[in-house]
């Protein structure tokens, strides 16, 4: 054997050895994704430096989002209460359902445009999107799990281990990767293609009731629900009395300040036609109930937000127009986008198409 051959063999072994050492990094080759920032919107508040979006991370986040593995008994997923057809809020349920036939204390809000939100929940108690999923996962009346319980299940699941290795380069899944993965998917839920948006971009026109409703909206609602998010993200007491059973005092639970009693987040109105029932505990079944609450001439309880103390005068006519306008905030391109629907649903829909002899698209 010549010396040169020995050197070649030696070189091969070294390269293989280094390859083995570095396999972690190479396996984790990911494909970067850039978040859509619609024209005219502010910069996102989410710090993408700590969690750059990747195709693999988003896909993993979506798998987790729709997987009941996150709940203690394997029955509840994030998607159970954040349903695409409800604008990623709960469709037609006042309170979220949890494990063991339980109810949570609040109505699940729509989770679109989260990249622009600083704190989360109806009371703003959570400061970072990555941390948000830990609350429903560990709440006894929601998913009822422990963080260690979820991590153990994921770490014992070969499919998830592989996906986390590819997306985040980790062999041992920790809370940080779980939160980041779920954030990646949720961050992609950007709602900016409703009829309202298309009208503003000059791609469509309001019909008359929508146009009139928009004018009423800009006079009477826009202070708390400014576009493009249709919320100013503040916490306000709209004068709804305390529910004796839930005893939910909203923002006060977080700040400990009596001035924040019964103040809840101003909800976004995007996809509002789909996200009924309304208010933090879903006590109002329809938009009509909401309008009736705001236009009521009954005296408001002490602590009601100054803007609402005298109510908002609304005629029946105006309510009709406002309803027409609010329906233009429904983003059908978002709620029907296969990228955001459970994979199983996408497969099923494809099969259904095949029944009629179509080969799919």
């Amino acid at each position, binding site marked *: 054997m010549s010396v040169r051959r020995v050197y070649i063999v030696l070189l091969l072994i070294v390269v293989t050895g280094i390859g083995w*050492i570095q396999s972690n990094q190479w396996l984790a080759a990911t494909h970067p994704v850039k978040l859509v920032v619609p024209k005219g919107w502010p910069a996102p508040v989410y710090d993408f430096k700590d969690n750059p979006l990747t195709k693999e991370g988003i896909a993993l986040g979506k798998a987790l989002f729709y997987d009941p593995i996150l709940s203690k008994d394997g029955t509840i997923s994030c998607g159970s209460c954040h349903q695409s057809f409800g604008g990623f809020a709960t469709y037609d349920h006042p309170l979220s359902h949890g494990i063991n036939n339980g109810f949570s204390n609040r109505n699940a809000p729509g989770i679109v445009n989260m990249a622009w939100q600083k704190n989360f929940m109806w009371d703003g108690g959570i400061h*970072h999107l990555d*941390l948000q999923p830990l609350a429903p996962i560990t709440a006894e009346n929601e998913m009822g799990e422990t963080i260690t319980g979820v991590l153990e299940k994921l770490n014992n699941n070969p499919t998830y281990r592989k996906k986390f290795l590819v997306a985040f380069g980790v062999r041992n899944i920790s809370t940080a990767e779980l939160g980041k993965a779920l954030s990646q998917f949720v961050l992609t839920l950007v709602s900016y293609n409703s009829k309202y948006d298309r009208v503003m971009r000059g791609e469509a026109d309001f019909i008359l009731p929508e146009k009139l409703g928009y004018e009423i909206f800009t006079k009477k609602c826009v202070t708390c629900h400014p576009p493009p998010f249709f919320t100013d993200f503040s916490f306000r007491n709209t004068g709804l009395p305390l529910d004796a059973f839930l005893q939910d005092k909203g923002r006060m639970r977080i700040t400990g300040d009596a001035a924040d009693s019964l103040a809840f987040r101003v909800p976004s109105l995007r996809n509002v036609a789909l996200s009924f029932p309304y208010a933090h505990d879903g006590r109002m079944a329809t938009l009509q109930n909401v309008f009736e609450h705001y236009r009521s001439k009954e005296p408001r309880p002490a602590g009601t937000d100054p803007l609402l103390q005298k109510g908002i005068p609304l005629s029946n006519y105006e309510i009709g127009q406002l309803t027409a306008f609010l329906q233009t905030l429904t983003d059908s391109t978002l709620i029907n986008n296969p990228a955001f629907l459970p994979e199983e649903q996408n497969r099923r829909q494809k099969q259904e198409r095949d029944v009629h002899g179509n080969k799919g698209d």
Partner: protein
Amino acid sequence: MRRWLIIIALIVPTALYSVNRYKTVNATQGLGLNFIPVVGDKMFSFDSSYINQTGETFTITKCLFYVSNFSITYKTGKRIRIPNSYFLIDLSDPLSCLIRLPVPANDVSAIDFLLGVDSAKNTGGIQRGVLDPARGMFWTWNTGYVMAKMEGVSSVANMPGHKFSYHIGGYSKGQQVTKSISLPVTSKFNDEKPIDITADLLRWFNGPLPISIAAHPSCHSPGQLARQISGNYQYMFGIKQYP
């Protein structure tokens, strides 16, 4: 010749791999600090019951706290800050009570640290290691760390199983419970051995505003009571003096 080359070829990648993995400092180097739970002038034991200033008898089943942001001062006047020094002391786990700081161990004149976790780590998303929320020292519904936790049993605690529990947290304005601790080191130590820091658990109850278990068997959110308890326990530390 050939055999040697093959052996070298096998050793090189293995050595590279080992170097990659074992970059951490040798566990016996640096300044060692050993947290020792005591009650008054006696060693603490999970088996014993104790009496607080209010006259209530209790046993402790669990006690954990975060210490962070260490800064060591030397007799020369030199001061070394140790960024990213976070430790979770679990008094039921002696291994967690002995910590090592990557600084010289001789001629220490003072030890400064934060009892709790600074606000940057409270607001910066999900942390790793001892700050991982999976460690159970974190509130998921109201973002923030439980800086210190004590659980126990007392017949006067009007709670299920007569259990009392104090989960102390809060970092925002008006709810702040983190405490800056400064311990001067005076006596002569054997530099080889860790410095013993005593943690007097009675101090949780006894202090400027004594805590009665009967009146306050539980504290599970930031606020007035949490501040009161942290106002007491900030005085629990001392450097163990040897004759």
